[in-house]
């Protein structure tokens, strides 16, 4: 009887431990994406930034001047910007087929004066709708101790079209 009680106790121990591990890993996987709100960004030539209920912002772009958005990215051990599993994504919405959005993922060197930037990426052929510009493992294993940022350039081909930038995410392993 005592053996059986011990076995039952052990089963409860194992079951509850496994449950907590599964729950913890699930939460961790969900939490391994970090959103960036636009109050952390610097704007150049943007017409306006409308805060959204989600906390993200929609940036209205001047049709004549375009806009440049410079967004520093917070990176740490929990969600690092370096490593092959890191992923930086710029989300937005084009409302006209003549808009052009390009982004570049960069780091500012922490202890010397300079930077490294990936090749620029664009939202692709002109279209109307949602877009996501993704940089997968943008810095490979390098630049772990440097400061990441994204520069997004939004241009309009002519007046009457608008484009919006919804947010940035950094995803980690």
């Amino acid at each position, binding site marked *: 009887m005592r053996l059986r009680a011990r076995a039952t106790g052990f089963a409860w121990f194992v079951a509850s431990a496994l449950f907590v*591990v599964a729950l913890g890993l699930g939460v961790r996987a969900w939490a391994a994406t970090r959103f960036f709100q636009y109050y952390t960004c610097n704007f150049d030539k943007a017409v306006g930034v409308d805060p959204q209920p989600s906390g993200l912002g929609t940036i209205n772009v001047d049709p004549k001047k375009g806009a440049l958005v410079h967004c520093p990215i917070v990176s740490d051990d929990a969600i690092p910007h370096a490593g092959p599993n890191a992923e930086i994504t710029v989300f937005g919405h084009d409302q006209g087929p003549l808009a052009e959005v390009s982004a570049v993922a960069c780091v500012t060197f922490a202890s010397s004066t300079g930077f490294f930037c990936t090749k620029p990426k664009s939202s692709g052929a002109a279209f109307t709708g949602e877009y996501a510009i993704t940089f997968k493992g943008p810095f490979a294993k390098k630049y772990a101790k440097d400061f990441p940022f994204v520069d997004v350039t939004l241009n309009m081909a002519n007046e009457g079209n608008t484009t919006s930038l919804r947010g940035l995410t950094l995803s980690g392993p």
Partner: protein
Amino acid sequence: LSRAGAAVLGVLAGGVAVALLSRLPARRAGAGSAAAEDPDRTHAAAHAALLARVASEPIAPAWSARMTDLVTRGLESEAPRGRFRVARVDCRSTACIATLEWRSRTDALASYGALAHALPDLPCTSELMLDAATTATLVLACDEQRRF
């Protein structure tokens, strides 16, 4: 031990396991970067090595001429705002080195960051390093010869 007691212990053990598992990737990344990277030395050494590699590339005449023109025009359009001078552009077969000069260190520090997005149409990575004075070298690594 009661069932409730065993379950509480299990929850605690599970919490500890999650905490340990969570630390593993960070530890691996930290260990790797600590071993591989002394940022000061690494960046300067890597940039010097990159400059040497590009300088030793053979010249592909057509690509070199076209890229030199594109890079020079792109940088010169930024020059008034950034208060720099394009001292030299040397394009080889897959990469270019541009040497930029400012009048003062203050001007250089204020404007070098804008060069990150100065050439958005070129499919090249860019690495810039400002030396102790007022000169920077910008390396554009394009991997392949393409028509632009």
